[in-house]
């Protein structure tokens, strides 16, 4: 309970900082400009840390370490290193221009920029609606992460619903009172706290594991060639054995399309060292699959483009006092990502070889009661291992450390892997320290504040003000009311969907792909004089219908999904011999290269912006000259 008390104290400090930040603001206190964009007055230090902090969610810590536990160290390169390249570049090219136009014309949201730049009204409302719908899952993630963190840090004493409720209430309170300045200060504190204590956590857990050198070397030693018979067939072979292409999708909706050979279960769990690589655990096996498909890896490069299109990031770009604040931000951003993601991913991967951690996650998983009913002796053994009554060195634990039972235990643990970092803290850090480190994790988890503020800003500026609300005081109060409503809705949804979806996929599937595909709209607004509102509308509708379509396909192909994440995908739609759509464990991918669905969405969005623009009339020359005062030979 001590760690939970420390986390509650931390939440009280955060609340204090957030609420009283606004009172410290003298100039323009109570104005819309102060509440929504902190009077465009943040200095370099606060700007960097708060911008970075608002981009780090529970997803960065709980999601990444959980994913590394399941899929290995590749998670860092897949998501973090590419973010360290693309996000600073997008801030450099797009963020600086959003700031400059905001300073010049008074914008406080992206939609205001679009409306002004393209001389449009209700098309902006369509863009607002899509942005808002995609932001809500992101907010829900924050509430979920808060509930899970408090639950994990307290060892289950604070239930998930209460933890999520407390976090939602704290965030709602300081956003309600403190607005952007309060949010920025809290984010700065949280980022600093995480950077400092995250490093301490890394050292403590690394020592607790018992020496990283020995552990990792023993994991790597397990990567020896295995008999090919136990491996999955390649996707090409499975495709050759599957049903005719035209019927694949409908068949997938009603019954598993997997042929007998495809359905053959994996008879042995992958070696412990598999998490140290991204490719094949046994390259000599012709049926072996990459752990991370190269097409998936390559197409993931588009995902960080979502960053600058997330309303909370774009709005944060408007808070800088000077353009020079962006300089250090873009240079240090990759290093900040490195500092937070690197230990989280590495420890998540190493934890997958720790029997006590695996057993802990397994007995806390939702599938454990069913397993307990089916195999009481094995379940009891898992509980003993988890509670430290036996160790991996004891002979009694041997059945859990090899063969099918090891696979079962890992499967259960995988389903609960977002709790891996918290479990390691509980196992390896003493009480008070675990509380401080739990508070540090909570710091990252609570990034939903800036998203809630962004959504309320969009409501006040893009809807309320657009439809005639001119009083600044009423704008601010309507935004505050919106903060309360949206937090309550997010909390209810977080409770309802908690058992169905993990943090990572929820964010990726709906928010990241959609926002990344909106990047061409922003790029066109800022860099292409000839772009028009109709191009923006076409792209927005394309993205909306793509997301809807993918959601429907995903829902109707549940039975076609592989049973576990490590199994190869199944083809659900093809043209001739060419696989087009594949059903992965918990997503839909594109072509045999297993590209993320964001790839066709992004290409389609570019085409929509281009075709929609060249086929319609551009805005007036006066507007174009306002946004492009310099004579530029490019991008007419």
């Amino acid at each position: 309970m001590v760690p939970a008390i420390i986390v509650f104290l931390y939440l009280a400090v955060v609340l204090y900082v957030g609420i009283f930040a606004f009172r410290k603001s003298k100039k323009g206190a109570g104005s819309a400009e102060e509440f929504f964009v902190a009077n465009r007055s943040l200095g370099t230090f606060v700007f960097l840390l708060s911008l970075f902090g608002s981009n780090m969610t529970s997803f960065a810590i709980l999601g990444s370490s959980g994913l590394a536990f399941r899929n290995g160290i590749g998670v860092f390169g897949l998501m973090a290193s590419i973010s360290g390249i693309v996000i600073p570049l997008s801030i450099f090219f797009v963020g600086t221009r959003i700031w400059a136009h905001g300073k010049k014309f008074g914008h406080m949201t992206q939609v205001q920029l679009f409306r002004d730049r393209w001389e449009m009204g209700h098309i902006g409302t369509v863009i607002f609606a899509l942005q808002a719908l995609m932001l809500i899952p992101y907010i829900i993630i924050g509430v979920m992460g808060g509930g899970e963190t408090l639950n994990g840090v307290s060892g289950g004493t604070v239930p998930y619903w209460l933890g999520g409720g407390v976090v939602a209430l704290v965030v709602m309170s300081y956003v309600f009172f403190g607005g952007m300045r309060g949010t920025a200060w809290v984010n700065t504190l949280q980022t600093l706290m995480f950077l400092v204590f995250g490093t301490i956590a890394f050292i403590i857990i690394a020592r607790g594991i018992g020496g990283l050198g020995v552990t990792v070397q023993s994991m790597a030693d397990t990567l020896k060639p295995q008999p090919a018979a136990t491996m999955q067939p390649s996707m090409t072979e499975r495709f050759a054995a599957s049903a005719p292409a035209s019927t694949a999708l409908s068949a997938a909706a009603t019954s598993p399309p997997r042929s007998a050979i495809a359905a053959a279960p994996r008879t042995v769990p992958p070696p412990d060292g598999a998490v140290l690589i991204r490719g094949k655990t046994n390259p000599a096996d012709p049926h072996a699959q990459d752990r991370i498909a190269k097409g998936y890896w390559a197409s993931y490069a588009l995902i960080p483009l979502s960053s600058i299109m997330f309303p909370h990031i774009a709005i944060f770009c408007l808070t800088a006092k000077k353009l020079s604040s962006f300089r250090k931000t873009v240079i240090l951003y990759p290093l900040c990502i490195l500092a937070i993601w690197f230990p989280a991913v590495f420890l998540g991967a190493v934890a997958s070889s720790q029997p006590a951690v695996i057993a802990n996650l397994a007995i806390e998983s939702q599938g454990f009661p069913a397993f307990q009913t089916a195999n009481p002796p094995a379940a009891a053994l898992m509980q003993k291992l988890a509670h430290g009554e036996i160790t991996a060195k004891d002979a009694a634990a041997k059945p859990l450390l090899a063969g099918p039972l090891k696979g079962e235990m890992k499967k259960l643990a995988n389903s609960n892997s977002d709790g891996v970092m918290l479990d390691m803290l509980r196992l390896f850090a003493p009480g008070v320290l675990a509380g401080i480190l739990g508070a540090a994790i909570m710091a990252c988890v609570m990034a939903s504040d800036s998203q809630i503020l962004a959504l309320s800003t969009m409501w006040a500026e893009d809807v309320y003000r657009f439809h005639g609300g001119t009083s600044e005081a009423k704008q601010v109060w309507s935004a505050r009311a919106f903060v309360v409503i949206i937090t309550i809705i997010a909390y209810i949804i977080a409770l309802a969907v908690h058992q169905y979806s993990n943090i990572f996929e929820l964010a990726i599937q709906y928010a990241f792909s959609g926002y990344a595909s909106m990047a061409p709209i922003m790029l066109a607004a800022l860099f292409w004089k000839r772009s028009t509102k109709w191009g923006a509308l076409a792209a927005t509708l394309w993205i909306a219908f793509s997301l809807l379509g993918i959601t429907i396909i995903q829902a109707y192909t549940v039975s076609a999904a592989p049973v576990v994440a490590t199994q190869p995908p199944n083809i659900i739609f093809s043209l001739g011999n060419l696989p087009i759509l594949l059903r992965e464990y918990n997503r839909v991918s594109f072509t045999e290269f297993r590209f993320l669905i964001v790839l066709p969405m992004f290409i389609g969005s570019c085409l929509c912006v281009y075709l929609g623009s060249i086929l319609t009339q551009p805005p007036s020359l006066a507007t174009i000259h306002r946004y492009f005062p310099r004579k530029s030979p490019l991008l007419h």
Partner: protein
Amino acid sequence: MLTQEDPSASRPTRPTAPRAAWVAPFLLLLLVLVLVLRHDFWNWDTPYPLLFGFLPIGLWWQALVSILASIMMALFVRLAWPHHLEEELQPPPDQHK
């Protein structure tokens, strides 16, 4: 909408000093290099060599890519900073009179 400016008002801006011709191709090449290094498919099937005896190559390689990205951004800031955005925000000279 918002803070409207008179579109007809011409705003003379001080022209930014032209960048050297090599800057854009150089930065583009640098970006391509960083992106290629991020796609280290040649390291896909092995954890070796282990840096410091415990970091698999798939991890430390990508960490180096992150450091390289930071250096790349420093060069972008140094060589291609959008000074014109600040210049466009300067009030017209007649306001100072």
